[in-house]
């Protein structure tokens, strides 16, 4: 259990790394129903001006919040969660690899307490989500009911 009164703004709640490969994108497409081919077809992605296949923004958003769910101990305590998608997350298809087994792109996530509401007893966790040092989500904030 988290002791709400012991929390401080600016306190780090933890960090995590999530890896994403092409097989993960196919799995997310199927699970979510988002079959936009920019997430699984290299030719199409390039033709519409992308550097190649990119991850679903919603994959990154969905995977990043795990850090907050683990910290809170109950994913159902996340009452509000928002982000802007600012940079694409490219997912390469390296020659000679099995796309299901290759490690994939590393998404780094760091969570910090951004605000505390003592009346509502909620904590806002601000997530910094980056790939190779570039922020891919901006204003990624999850509000946790404690």
């Amino acid at each position, binding site marked *: 259990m988290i002791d709400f009164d012991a929390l401080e703004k600016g306190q780090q709640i933890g960090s995590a790394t999530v890896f994403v490969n092409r097989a993960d994108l196919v799995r997310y497409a199927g699970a979510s129903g988002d079959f936009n081919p920019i997430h699984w077809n290299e030719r199409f992605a390039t033709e519409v001006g992308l550097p190649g296949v990119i991850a679903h923004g919603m994959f990154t958003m969905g995977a990043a919040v795990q850090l907050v769910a683990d910290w809170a101990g109950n994913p159902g305590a996340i009452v509000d969660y*928002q*982000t802007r998608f600012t940079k694409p997350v490219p997912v390469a298809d390296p020659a000679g690899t099995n796309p299901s087994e290759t490690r994939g792109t590393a998404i780094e996530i760091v969570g910090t307490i951004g605000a505390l509401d003592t009346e509502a007893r909620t904590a806002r966790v601000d997530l910094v989500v980056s790939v190779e040092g570039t922020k891919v989500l901006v204003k990624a904030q999850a509000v946790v009911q404690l």
Partner: protein
Amino acid sequence: MSINPDLAGRNYPAQEPYVVGREKIREFAAAVKATHRAHYDLDAAAQLGHGDLLAPPTFAIIVAQRADALLVNDSDSGIDFSRVVHADQRFTHHRPIVAGDQLVAELHVDTVRAMGGGAMISTRAEIATTEGEKVATTVSSILVRGEDQ
């Protein structure tokens, strides 16, 4: 074809209910690499006070994007889905989503803003049970890139 500026203020009524299934929750949780047992195991969900498997925090996107499709596929919207980029997303949960929920979504087109040859469109899905209990509000903006963008 350009974006129809009259889309702003348009509402799309709820369609057939979306029935949240246990296997869908497990499948979606695995797809976002969520490991919390409450998404997979009934006892773990019950220990946290949930009546059935708990959906991950972004699960409502399935229901929201089905509602968004009503707008995107509307013949006079002028939206070319292959030129759509997801710009932002917000979920406000009035209560957690669990397996067995029968959800309906009412879609509201809140704003349409011309940007270059394209447009930024913000929509809001009000998600409730078929009995009328409020479950979640999702807000999303999509950028439809113009022909030269």
